[in-house]
């Protein structure tokens, strides 16, 4: 039974029959997915507390509580409505924002939401083995915080699909759980989310660069003419900032350590022999994730740069993926 108690929300779930019906099917599938594809080996781990949003105040700030990982409750939150919000730009500038999806833009909006939604569980899947090799409990906590919040962002997108896109929306919501990062048969939509993240340098680079792109995408979606999308993403932004913090401080810590080791060894660049990560290696990771993340902005194939760097790092690795195909060039 779906209840507001199990699913913290500010979208009136208890009185929304349509949403309840949709979630009754989807929520068990999500839990199943989290168990199979979420952090491996930590499903019953009680040593880490994560933050969970329980409500949101009128100025858009969330209220949080701390729960153990297995007790995390994924919720649905929208930022509060802005009175008399108007469309900010484009052909409809100045007109009232949309509270329903206009038929004319149904496909485009659905594609935007599905593409955004697809990235959220993808990153959880990419990172599911990292807990086994975490450098510290601090990092483990950050990792899981990022993971549960990506999961919640999936909920946010699924809420929109369930509420505004009818049967197609419910089908797409199921597909979001069916695709899997790096799965040859059912890959995630965007390339950056099919790349393996099997070490912590990848993870920090991902949260440094790819989540930066994520923030940029969310910021633009938060200006959407479709008001529920704008309000959903505005709330998500409050969480995304922490992800970038994890990345930025993570990369900074590694750089600091590398510099320390270089100093200690008389400014030698060879810090591998003393257990560090040398600068050329760090640079290659930067090159890969920076260009993969840039590709996320495009609407054409443009993974050339990423392939180049990735091939230098590990021949053939990114050739498994042909590129981000998000636009059509033909009739």
């Amino acid at each position, binding site marked *: 039974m779906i209840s507001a108690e199990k699913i913290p929300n500010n979208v009136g779930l208890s009185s929304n029959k349509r949403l309840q019906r949709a979630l009754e099917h989807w929520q068990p599938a999500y839990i199943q997915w989290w168990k199979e594809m979420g952090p491996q080996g930590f499903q019953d781990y009680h040593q880490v507390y994560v933050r969970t949003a329980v409500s949101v105040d009128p100025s858009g700030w969330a209220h949080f509580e701390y729960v153990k990982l297995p007790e995390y409750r994924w919720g649905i939150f929208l930022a509060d409505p802005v009175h008399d919000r108007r469309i900010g730009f484009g*052909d409809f500038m100045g007109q009232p924002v949309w509270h329903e999806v206009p038929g004319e833009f149904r*496909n485009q909006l659905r*594609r935007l939401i599905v593409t955004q939604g697809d990235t959220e569980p993808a990153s959880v899947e990419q990172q599911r083995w990292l807990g086994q090799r975490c450098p510290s409990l601090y990092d483990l906590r950050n990792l899981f915080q990022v993971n549960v919040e990506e999961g919640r962002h999936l909920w946010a997108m699924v809420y929109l699909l369930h509420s505004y896109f009818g049967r197609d929306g419910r089908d797409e919501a199921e*597909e979001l759980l*069916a*695709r899997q990062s790096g799965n*040859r*048969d*059912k*890959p995630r*939509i965007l390339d950056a989310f099919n790349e393996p993240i099997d070490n912590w340098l990848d993870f920090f680079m991902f949260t440094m660069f790819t989540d930066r792109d994520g923030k940029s995408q969310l910021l633009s979606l938060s200006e959407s003419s479709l008001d529920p999308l704008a309000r959903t993403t505005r709330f998500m932004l409050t969480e995304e900032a922490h992800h970038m913090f994890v990345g930025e401080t993570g990369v900074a810590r590694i750089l600091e350590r590398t510099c320390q080791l270089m100093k200690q060894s008389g400014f030698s660049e060879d810090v591998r022999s003393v257990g560090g990560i040398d600068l050329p290696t760090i640079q290659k990771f930067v090159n890969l994730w920076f260009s993969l993340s840039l590709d996320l902005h495009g609407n*054409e*194939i443009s993974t050339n740069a990423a392939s180049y760097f990735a091939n230098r790092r590990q021949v053939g690795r990114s050739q498994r*993926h*042909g*590129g981000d*195909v998000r*636009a*059509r*060039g*033909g*009739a």
Partner: protein
Amino acid sequence: MEAATGTAKPNVSFETSPEKYRHWKLAFDGPVATVSMDVQEDAGLSPDYRLKLNSYDLGVDIELADAIQRIRFEHPEVRTVVITSLKERIFCAGANIFMLRGSTHAWKVNFCKYTNETRLAIEDASEHSGIKFLAALNGICAGGGYELALACDELILVDDGNSAVSLPETPLLGVLPGTGGLTRVVDKRKVRRDLADFFGTIAEGIKGKRAVEWRLVDAVYPTSQFRQRVADRAKALADRSDRPSDAAGIRLNPLNPSIDENRYKYSLVDIEIDRDKRVATLTVSGPIGDAPVSVDQIIAAGDQFWALRAFRELDDALLRLRINEPLIGTVVIKTRGDQRAMLAMDAFLIAHAQHWLLREIINFMKRTLKRLDLTSRSFFALIEPGSCFAGSLFELAIAADRSYMLDDPEQENTIALSGMNGGPLKMSNGLTRLETRFLADPQKVKAALADDGPFDPQEAMAAELISFAPDELDWDDEVRLAIEGRAALSPDALTAMEANLRFAGPETMETKIFGRLTAWQNWIFIRPNAVGEKGALTAYGSQSRPEFDYNRT
């Protein structure tokens, strides 16, 4: 853009060969040939657009047509052709939108006509040559890409949660899937019209199980099984073919016409152009000497065998006229040669029509004549002494919009029929040209074919095989006035009138594609809602959305 899309006088060659392909790769494995699309972005006919995502322009389609043709003639062992793509997660995105946007109206129309003919040639090979086509859709298959797939006998789509078949022309571009898409969905694949209606209005298309349920594809398989399933299916299809496994093909060598300002000169076909009058004279030479006595002789002659050589040259000449000579509105058709040699040639063709090579040659003659039927120029046949309007070449006279036969008691001037006029060279309406001519009285077809001929002008008039038979005193004026009068009429009205008159009789999928689908498409191609300043085709890919005039016509 100019040379390649028709804003200046274009100069396109339709000849190519596999070692010159830029966009396709051919691979042969026993009875299975794989034709893989791998479009080079920067190798379009014009530098003004890039052929991204396996989108195509005329140059890409010329290579595809060549590949299909060569498989038929050069590789008799091939029984199944797999059409697929070498680009990961993309099969084909369809005709290049930026090419379409930058093209003249005439270029768009001729581009679509040619690509339609290429797809129909695929279906012709399936129906008449025993070559089955399998579309292995390894990724996005949109618009013209899906239309290419629809021309194949079977469609297998990868089930990766992302790849879909789609016809996004209407929702994205405000035009039609005009390369047979709409027609084939309901007529060939027999998709229910309400489902087709839905499918035709959603840009993202249909994927997975639903694509199979709706009959849009025949099967879907996950990526890990895809290649193996395609290979299995290709082999199963090959087992059903009657193509020989031990025959050697014949090589199709370059035609190498000499092309001057006002002359296209081939070995058996000659075009002379009078630019002031906007008239071309197309002359085809008949076969010389005794008929061949054995098929081995034909195989030895290869592409120099008259029937193949003459019709390859005719085909190339028609294509060049269409694309490169838009101002030449009237084509006078002449023939010359020995009618008895022509009739002997026809008798030989018919006697060996079941041999794989002669089957290919006859079917190619048929397709070339169809190409003439579909060429939007006025054709007048002039039947003069020394001409060779007999049997296969007589088809040129009844394919023409009118024929004039000189009736001069001093000079022998005849026409003749053969079995080739009685069945092998059917038009796109499924009838022979004689049957189409005598819709009102099918007995006349039988009577004409039963008559051994030759027919002199009076007999030809009586048998209704020609239009007019002016005598030697009237001939020059009659012919001159007819041609000059024709050239003065509105070219648009003539194109439309000819297309309406040439295809009397029943509808087929083929006549629907040209007579309905592409006719509507050509209408849309000049409407402001598509190509106006704020039309959908103009607006696509720009920052602005289209603005429609919502009045229904």
